[in-house]
Every structure is written in structure tokens, then in C-alpha cells.
């Protein structure tokens, strides 16, 4: 994965830039010591590392604005960072950048149960948003697997999803307002506790823009009352084709579960070892969860089990109690870390039309043979968001490159069947060079024109999302000069 050469002129002014940042922020909010910068050299895409020129940890919107004004005036690129859990390299620094971490912005500013909203600073972790309202039986719906650690700022940047978004939607469907600071330090309020935009949908545009349009410092989020109860059912099948057909039948039948998760044999084993959830041994496992009162759950699961039985499952079992339900989800949500304990892996995130699931799974199996690398599948089957995990050996020369080529082929396949490169993780650097598989030059041009308006000098997280050769004239100022 290529990154742009650091700007020698910026590196030469490092001491000066750091001094200006130190003058604007409290003493402990600027990190410049080499050993400390190492902590910020990568995010959860650990295959790529590069310490930044400096790290700033502002604690208010005003401090963020001060940092951005300085960097804007100095022409220094800024890479925003939430909690650093991006699987796509969204927070990977360049050597000539100031990395802006929002970790100190972690307060709850207002909870409003009558209007069902919460206002938080953007560095607050996803799970702790729910933590702030669960005493009143409310929750924040988007639940990425990294929810214990990931920050709302990163969720907004990547428009993160999660296992339960089949029913509750992804971040953009649960975000009502933000305070955002543009690269030139301008602070803008977008939205609030009211619904929808009166003019252009700025909120929708900012959500998922991968930290390239501005730095979000506060967010108003929709909170929901917890359902009376929830219960998962486990369904095991002989083949992934049959499991895929079952998913499609459930959806067509008019029962909409909150989640339909899929795991193949490899992942079932790995997650079972990790969580002792009692997963059945089989080729393909579905975890289907419904919500409501006990009677409502019985009703819905009755319909779902009837559909499943028509597909001759090898196992069909409801969670007996809350403890078992928790273990079933703990296993699923730990899938990435559990496999990470036994192997190096690369996690993909393409989405496909649900109808193409059997074909795509078969092709991935064939490609796995061709490339000689193992692959496990765990994904959100209800919405077609796949997560193939390709296993490789980081210590074996050439293995990472083979793995990346295999991954690229899988993502091309996703686009070929009518899907996309990334369903919830974002493009970052990981899928940057595949953007032209999904988009024509005019499509990418239309996106880059948005960044031209928000960040004309292309200083915010500039080396992400768009292929380097495509963004090069803008990043180097050639279009502006012309």
C-alpha cells in the first residue's frame, strides 16, 4: 500500500509547527517525543504503520478549531483519529501530518428522554453512550463489534453499522446533529434535536466522509427505548447455499428480525472456543434475533423456525436464557479478535445483494484454493454485508501481498454482482485503490468536488478514500494553480 512521500518542507518546519501548537494548547495536549508518537503509528489495520509528525489531544471544540487554524495556515495535513479502531486505515498517519485525537472529548453534554436524544462529545465510546442512558432503559442502536472501544467520531466518519442495523439502521440513520470544525477553523452547527434538513442534507454528507470534510467534536444522537426482551435462535445448515436461501425466505415472509448473522465452519469453531456459546458444528450457522415481549418473541420465532425447518436444518435451538443469549452474541462479536489470536488475518467488508450470497460464497471458496490462503466467513446476512477473513502469515515474505490480491479479487466480485467495496468499515487506505472498480472517473470527480468545497487545500486526511493518482493534482495543489 503506497502512501504519498512526506513533504520535506513541512518536516523542516516541524519544531516551528509544534511550538505554535504548544502555544495554543495545554502542555500535555501536544505529543512530540518519538517514543510516544509510536502509539499513534497505526489503527486496527496494523499491517501499515507510520508515526505522525506530532499528536494533539484537544479537549474542546475551541481547541480543535485552534489546532486546525494553525495547521491550515501552515499548510500541514491533519489526520483525525477517534479511538484508532479503523480496520481500513482511516486513521493511518503520514510522517508530515499532525494527528488530531479526540479521545479527551468524552463528555455527555445532555440527555433528553422526552425527545429521545443524547448530546455527546465525539470522543465518547459507542458503548458508553448506551451506558449513559441504560438506567432509564434506553440505548444507542448502532453496535459495531468494536463498540467497547470505538469512538462516536470514528462511527460518524465511517458511517459505522453493526449487527443490529437490519432493524435500526446505521450511524447516519441515528445521527441528528453535529458540531463540526472545518479545516480553516470555522465551527458549524448542523442539525440538532429536530428531524431532517431544511435545505441540503449536510449531516448526511458529513456522515461517512472519513474525516475528510471536517472534524466532528459533538454529536446529537437518537436514543431508543429498549425492547421488552430479545432472544436469538441458532440455526445450523449443511451448506451456505441453504443458509442463504433460508435468509432470503425469512425476509420475504414479512418477519424482520433485528439481526441475521452468518458464520461458516471455521468461524463457528474459533468463536466457540472463545465464548463457549454452544454453537452447533455445521457448515453454516445463522444467528437470528427477534425482539419484544416473551409472547411476541414466541410468535416471531415460531414463524421463523417454520421457515427454517423447510430447509432441513441440522440444528435449531433458541437461547434458553439471558446468559446463553449473551454468550451467543459474545462469540459473534469476538469473531475478529478470536481469529486474531490464532492467525494474522485481513478482514474484508464488501456488501452484495442477498440473492447473490450462495454464488459469492462458492467463488470465495474457489479463490481460496487458487491463492492457497484460508478464508473464514462471518457476516451480516440480512443486509448482505460480508466479512471474509483471509488468513495469512505476516512473517512469510510475500504472504501479505498474496492476501491483498485475494482480497481485491473478492471485492471486485462483490462489485460485479451489484454490490460495493465496503458496507460499514470505510475505504480508508485499504480499499482506496479499488475505488475505480466501483466508480467511473466522473463519480469520483463528483465526490472530490465536495471536498474541494469543504477543504480546498486538501489538508484533512488527504491520502485516503481516493486512489492516489486520482487525488494527486488536488493534494499537490496543481488543480488550484491551474
Amino acid at each position: 500500500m503506497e502512501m504519498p512521500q512526506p513533504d520535506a518542507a513541512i518536516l523542516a518546519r516541524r519544531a516551528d509547527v509544534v511550538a505554535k501548537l504548544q502555544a495554543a494548547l495545554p502542555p500535555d495536549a501536544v505529543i512530540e517525543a518519538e517514543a510516544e508518537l509510536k502509539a499513534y503509528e497505526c489503527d486496527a489495520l496494523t499491517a501499515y504503520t507510520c508515526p505522525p509528525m506530532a499528536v494533539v489531544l484537544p479537549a474542546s471544540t475551541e481547541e480543535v478549531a485552534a489546532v486546525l487554524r494553525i495547521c491550515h495556515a501552515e499548510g500541514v495535513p491533519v489526520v483525525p483519529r477517534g479511538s484508532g479502531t479503523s480496520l481500513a486505515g482511516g486513521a493511518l498517519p503520514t510522517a508530515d501530518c499532525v494527528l488530531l485525537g479526540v479521545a479527551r472529548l468524552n463528555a455527555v453534554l445532555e440527555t433528553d428522554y422526552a425527545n429521545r436524544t443524547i448530546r455527546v462529545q465525539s470522543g465518547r465510546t459507542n458503548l458508553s453512550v448506551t451506558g449513559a442512558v441504560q438506567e432509564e432503559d434506553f440505548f444507542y442502536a448502532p453496535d459495531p463489534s468494536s463498540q467497547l472501544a470505538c469512538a462516536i467520531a470514528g462511527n460518524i466518519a465511517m458511517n459505522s453499522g453493526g449487527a443490529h442495523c437490519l432493524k435500526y439502521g446505521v450511524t447516519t440513520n441515528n445521527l441528528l446533529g453535529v458540531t463540526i470544525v472545518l479545516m480553516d477553523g470555522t465551527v458549524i452547527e448542523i442539525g440538532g434535536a429536530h428531524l431532517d434538513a431544511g435545505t441540503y442534507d449536510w449531516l448526511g454528507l458529513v456522515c461517512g466522509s472519513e474525516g475528510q470534510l471536517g472534524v466532528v467534536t459533538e454529536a446529537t444522537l437518537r436514543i431508543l427505548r429498549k425492547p421488552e426482551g430479545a432472544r436469538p435462535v441458532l440455526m445450523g445448515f449443511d451448506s451456505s447455499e441453504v443458509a442463504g436461501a433460508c435468509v432470503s425466505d425469512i425476509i420475504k415472509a414479512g418477519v424482520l428480525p433485528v439481526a441475521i448473522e452468518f458464520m461458516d465452519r471455521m468461524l463457528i469453531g474459533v468463536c466457540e472456543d472463545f465464548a463457549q456459546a454452544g454453537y452447533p458444528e455445521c457448515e453454516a450457522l445463522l444467528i437470528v434475533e427477534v425482539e419484544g415481549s416473551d409472547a411476541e418473541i414466541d410468535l416471531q420465532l415460531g414463524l421463523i423456525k417454520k421457515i427454517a425447518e423447510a430447509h432441513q436444518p441440522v440444528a435449531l435451538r433458541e437461547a434458553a436464557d439471558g446468559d446463553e443469549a449473551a454468550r451467543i452474541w459474545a462469540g459473534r462479536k469476538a469473531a475478529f479478535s478470536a481469529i486474531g489470536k490464532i492467525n494474522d488475518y485481513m478482514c474484508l467488508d464488501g456488501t452484495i445483494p442477498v440473492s447473490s450470497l450462495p454464488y459469492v460464497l462458492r467463488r470465495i471458496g474457489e479463490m481460496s484454493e487458487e491463492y492457497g490462503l484460508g478464508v473464514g466467513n462471518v457476516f451480516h446476512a440480512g443486509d448482505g454485508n460480508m466479512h471474509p477473513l483471509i488468513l495469512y502469515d505476516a512473517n512469510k515474505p510475500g504472504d501479505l501481498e498474496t492476501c491483498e490480491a485475494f482480497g481485491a479479487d473478492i471485492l471486485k466480485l462483490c462489485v460485479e454482482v451489484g454490490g460495493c467495496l465496503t458496507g460499514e468499515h470505510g475505504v480508508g487506505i485499504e480499499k482506496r485503490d479499488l475505488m475505480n472498480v466501483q466508480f467511473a472517473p466522473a463519480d469520483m470527480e463528483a465526490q472530490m468536488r465536495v471536498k474541494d468545497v469543504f477543504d480546498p487545500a486538501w489538508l484533512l486526511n488527504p491520502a485516503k478514500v481516493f486512489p492516489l493518482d486520482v487525488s494527486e493534482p488536488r493534494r499537490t495543489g496543481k488543480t488550484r494553480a491551474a
Partner: protein
Amino acid sequence: MLAPASETELAEAVAGAAGPLAVRGGGTRGFGAPAGEALSVAGLSGVELYEPGALTIVARAGTPVAEVEAVLAAEGQRLPFEPMDHRTLSGANGAPTVGGMVAANVSGPRRIQAGACRDSLIGVRFVDGSGTIVKSGGRVMKNVTGYDLVKLMAGSFGTLGILSEVAFKVLPATEASATLVLDGVTPERGVAALSAALGSPFEVSGAAHLTADQQAVMRLEGFEDQVGYRSERLAAVLASFGEVRVERDAARSARIWADVRDATGLAAEPGDIWRLSVRPTDGPVVWAALGRPPALFDWGGGLIWVRVADGTDVRAGLAGVAGHATLVRATPATRARLGTFHPEPPALAALAQGLRRQYDPRGILNAGLMSAEA
């Protein structure tokens, strides 16, 4: 009038336009036609792809909304956001199109539970002001590949590009529904009841206050047994607000929500009609500040429809309150004087102008509709 029959013809028409274009779908909104030659997308019509098992549908922009709804209903599915029909207020004769619906981000009562039009929109194709065809999103439910221009196009009223194709995620229609009615409540008390209902675990999919009738109404949808159970439980939650009637007749219940959706109760009498979006508990406060005009509250109190004397600027009622107001029905003179859309703060207005210059450098797409600049 320009009437392209394909996306390619649309692109050629825009590229070859000698001056401003007034873009129209079904022409049902009545927001006034911008200056310029009329361009109708009605010729781009038809459902292109529908996969019930994947909950997705793709249609050309000029396809009538009714046609899409009929195709979905045949498979027991629906557009989740319950788009309103502006003809009740505008008196127009045309047929609403899916392109127009997206361009105006049109939603209805179910918006509070299932999201707005923009939340169900998963892909668009459009022609920008230079005649370039652009796509964003696609036909899958989860997609974060590149910027979300899909959201940007929803509600941009044809000022950044002319939609040629739109894709939605859809939902199964529900088996049963019920409307809970609380009689004799003021908007203040009614909105408090709606907040209590929306804060319950029973997934209220409609929450309105019919101000003329002093009624708060709440909708429950689901399986037959589920709706019965939830009606009882929700009535218990609302006990402190008074006695709750449960309307289980499907046709009467549907009528109530169609009238809320289209603001039917305000249509007959003359006067300007505004649509305001505020924080739900601010709804009654803003209404009182406006002098308690004939009104209807939807979205738990957060969406206020008001009818006021010709030429009244209701934005004054939003002083100190976050939100926005749109002038939905007015005489041409009032519309020319007050504008249709809520003025933006300077920083956002500058970004909006920047976007229009990028997407429509000649300034020919619905010029002046969303801004003072021509």
C-alpha cells in the same frame, strides 16, 4: 418543454441547454416553477429491478410513486417512510414521481420510526449541471464506499443535479395496525402523551396531535396478536393522560394517518401553509408563539403544520429555537417575498453556494429555487 426519454437524452439536453432549466417530475408540489425552460423527467419511467428477498427496488426517476407502491404491495412490501401526497394541499393534477419524492425528501408519519425518504434511499444516478452522468450508492442496503452523495441529492430539489434513477431499501408491510386515540387534550398535554408513547418499548409508528379535534393519536403496527397486546400495554402507559380509545378498524385507522400525512385538515380553508421541524417538546411552544393558528402536529410534536394569514412569516416563531420552516402553500407573491426554504447561517450558505458552483457551474438547474443567487 424538454422531455428526454432516457438518461442519455437527459444528459444531452442538459449539456446542450442554452439557459436555465426548470426541472419537474409530476409537478404536484406547487413550490413554484423556477425561471427557464421546463424539463420533465416523466419520460424516464419504469421499475428496473425489484428483489423482494433482498428488500430492494430500483426505479427510473419519472416513475409514478403509485406504480412503485403497487409493485411493492403485490409482494407484501412498502416504502417505509410513507411519502405524503402534496396534491391535497396544492390542488395539482399531476402524478407524483419517485424522482420528485427524493428531490424533496418527502416522508410521512412513519418517519419517526422508519426514517425519512433519505434513510431508505440507497442509490441514485443523476445528471449534473454540465450534463455529466454521476452515480452514488447502489442497490445494496449497507454501503459506505465513498461520500454519501445519495443523502446530498435527497432534498436538494434538483439544484445540484437532475435525478435519473433512484434505489430504495423497502420493508415488509405489517399484518395489522391500530390507532390509539386520546380525546380532549391540548397540544401541550398531547405532545407530553406522545413523548411517553414514543419512549415506551412498543415501537409507535405514528404520533400526532390533531389540534382541531384536540386529539392525540398513536399508531401501532405488527402482527395481529402483537398489535392487540401492545394496544393494551400502551393504553396503560398513557393512563395518567386520560382514557384511551383503540381504533382497530383498518380502513378508519388508515384514513386517520393518510390525513395526518397529507395535512388534509388544513387544506380546505384559504391561507399560507408552513411546515416546521423542531424538537418535539418545542412544538407546542413554537405554536403558541405563532398565536395558536390552525395546526396539526406530527412526529411526536416535532413536525408542525400551520395555516396562517397570507404573507405571515412564521420563522419569527422559531426565534431562539433550533429547527427550520418551509413554505409549502402560498400565493406566488408571498413565495417571491418570503422564499420557500429556511435561510441558512452564513457558513452553510457559503458551502451551499460552493457546491452549486461545483455541480452546476452555469447556474442553470432550478436557479434561485434554494438561494437568492440567480
